[in-house]
C-alpha cells in the first residue's frame, strides 16, 4: 500500500507527518523522501545509509563522422535540446527530456544515447523504517526523473509512505502518481486554503483518494474547515500549534519521540488511513 503526504503550500508539515507516521506504525514500513530538491526526512530519521547509486537520464550524443547535417533531429525535438547548425549539431543536455526522438529519426544512425548523472539515491535503515531518498544535483532543472527513480525502489515493506515535494506541478504529480491514498497537509490560513484547493484539484484530476490534516490548527481562521465541509472532504486529524513542537522540529527530533503525548494522534491517523485504503483495495479486488 502506497500513501503519499503532499501539501500545495510549502512548510505545512509534510515531512513531520511522514516521519512520525512511519515512526508510530506497527506495519513493516518504508519511507521514500521524494522531495529531491530539498530532502529533509533524513534529518529526523538519521538513517544508516547502506547503499548509494547514481541516477542518470539519457541524452543524445552525435557522431560527427556519421552525421550528414540533415537537420531531422532538430525538427523533431520539442525542447530545443538538439540544434543543427550549418557545420555541426549542438546538444543542450539540461534541456533534454530523454524522449529519444532524435535517435529514432536520424537516417544515418549518427545519434546514440549516453547517460548523464542528475543526482543520486541513498537507501538504508532507521530503526524499523526502511529509508530511501533522492538528491538532485544542484543546478539541474528537472526533478521528475529523479523522483521516478526514488519511487522505483522496491522496499521490503507492506506500507510505503511517500514524502512529496510542495506545489501542484510536475514534481508533485510524479510523486503522487499511482499511490493508493494521499494525505494533504495544510494550515488554517488563507495561503493554506488557497493552495489546498489547488492540491485538491490536482488529486481529483488524477483520481486519487485523499483526506486532509490541519496543522497548527488553533491558528488562523475557519476557511479550511468550511471548505472541507462544503466539498465533503474528510478532515483526518488536527495538530495544534505547540511551540514545543516547533522547537523539537527545529532540532531535527521526531515529535513522537520527544513529545510522546502526540503519539496517539499519529497512531490513530495512520490506522484510519490504512484501514480506509485497505477497504478500497479489497473492494476493487
Amino acid at each position: 500500500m502506497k500513501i503519499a503526504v503532499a501539501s500545495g503550500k510549502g512548510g505545512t508539515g509534510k515531512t513531520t507527518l511522514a516521519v512520525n507516521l512511519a515512526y508510530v506504525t506497527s506495519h513493516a514500513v518504508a519511507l521514500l523522501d521524494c522531495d529531491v530538491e530539498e530532502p529533509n526526512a533524513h534529518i529526523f530519521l538519521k538513517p544508516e545509509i547502506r547503499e548509494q547509486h547514481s541516477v542518470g537520464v539519457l541524452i543524445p550524443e552525435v557522431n560527427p563522422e556519421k552525421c550528414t547535417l540533415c537537420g531531422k533531429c532538430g525538427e523533431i525535438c520539442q525542447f530545443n535540446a538538439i540544434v543543427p547548425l550549418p557545420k555541426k549539431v549542438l546538444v543542450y543536455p539540461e534541456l533534454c527530456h530523454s524522449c529519444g526522438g532524435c535517435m529514432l529519426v536520424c537516417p544515418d544512425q549518427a545519434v546514440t544515447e549516453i547517460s548523464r548523472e542528475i543526482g543520486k539515491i541513498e537507501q538504508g535503515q532507521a530503526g524499523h523504517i526502511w529509508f530511501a531518498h533522492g538528491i538532485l544535483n544542484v543546478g539541474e532543472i528537472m526533478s521528475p526523473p529523479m523522483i521516478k527513480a526514488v519511487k522505483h525502489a522496491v522496499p521490503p515493506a507492506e506500507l510505503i509512505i511517500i514524502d512529496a515535494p510542495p506545489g501542484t506541478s510536475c514534481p508533485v504529480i510524479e510523486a503522487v502518481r499511482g499511490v493508493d491514498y494521499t494525505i494533504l497537509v495544510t494550515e488554517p490560513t488563507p495561503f493554506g486554503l488557497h493552495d489546498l484547493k489547488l492540491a485538491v484539484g490536482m488529486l481529483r484530476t488524477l483520481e486519487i483518494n485523499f483526506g486532509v490534516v490541519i496543522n497548527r490548527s488553533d491558528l488562523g481562521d475557519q476557511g479550511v474547515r468550511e471548505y472541507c465541509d462544503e466539498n465533503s472532504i474528510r478532515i483526518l486529524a488536527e495538530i495544534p500549534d505547540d511551540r514545543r513542537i516547533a522547537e523539537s522540529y527545529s532540532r531535527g527530533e521526531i515529535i513522537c519521540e520527544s513529545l510522546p503525548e502526540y503519539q496517539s494522534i499519529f497512531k490513530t491517523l495512520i490506522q484510519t488511513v490504512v484501514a480506509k485504503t485497505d477497504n478500497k483495495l479489497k473492494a476493487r479486488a
Partner: protein
Amino acid sequence: MKELVIISGKGGTGKTSITGAFASLAGNSVLADCDVDAADLHLLLKPRIIKKHDFYGGSRALIRNELCTDCGKCREVCRFDAIEIRGPVSPHSQKTYQVDPVACEGCGLCAYFCPAQAIQFDLALNGEWYISGTNYGPMVHAQLGMAEGNSGKLVSRIRSEAKKIAEEEKIGNLLIDGSPGIGCPVIASITGADQVLIITEPTLSGLHDLRRVAELTRHFHIPAMVGINKWDINEELTGEITRQTKELGLTMAGKIRYSRAVTEAQVKQVPIVEYTNDGISQDIRELWQVVMEELNKS
C-alpha cells in the same frame, strides 16, 4: 531597474509574507509572483486584473480514434507511459488508444511516427497569466492549470513581462516572489537577477535547504543575501546560520522575530507592516533597508 528575487529552498519560511511587506514599504515597484504552482501573493496585494493572457507552454498529443488502426506504434515509441489502451469505442477497432494528458511530456514522437496520421499534436493551454494593478504598483502573476506542467516557461514569461513593464513605466524596483526548492521554476526565477534574498528559519531543515539553495545561487553567479525568519524559535541555530552565511560568502541581511501577527495579518489579507507597528514590523523595515542598500550596490 533592479531585480530582487525572494526564495527560500525550504517551503513555508515566510517568502510571500515578506515580499508583501516589501511591496508595501517600497511604495511603488513592479511585483511578480513566480511561485506559479502555489501562488499566494495576490491574497495580500489584491491585484485588479487589467489583462488576461492564455499560456501555452508546450504541445500535447491527442489520438483521433476514428483514424486509429490499432497498430500500437505510439505506445512503442512513448517513453512516458502516456499511451493507454482502453476497450473498443467503434465496431472497426479492437482497442482504443488514448493519451493520458497528465503523463504526456509533449515530445510529439507518437504523432510523428503514427503511420495513419491519427494523432493530433497541438499547443496545449497550460494556464493563464495576468497583468494587474495594485496599490503598490503593477503586478504580473499567473495561474497554472490543474495538474499542468511547464511552470519554468511560465515563470520566464512572467519575469520578462514584469521587466518590460518596469522599463516602460520607469519603475526602479522589481520584486519577485519565488518558489520553494532548487529546480526548474526556481532556476527560471533567479537566472540573471541582480540580487536574491534567501529567507530561512532556524531549524535543521531550514539550514540544510539554505545550503543547497546558496549553492544554486553560486552556481548561477547571482549575489545572495540571507534573512532569518522566526529567529527566536532556536537562538543557537540562528547563531549557526549566521556563522555559515558568512562562511558561504553571503550577506546577512537581517533577522525577523516570531510573531502570531503574521498569521493574523494574513487572515485580514494585508501586508504585515500595515497590520501592526510592533517589533516584527520594525524587524522587517530594518531588513528592507539593508536589502535596498545591497540592491543599489549591485
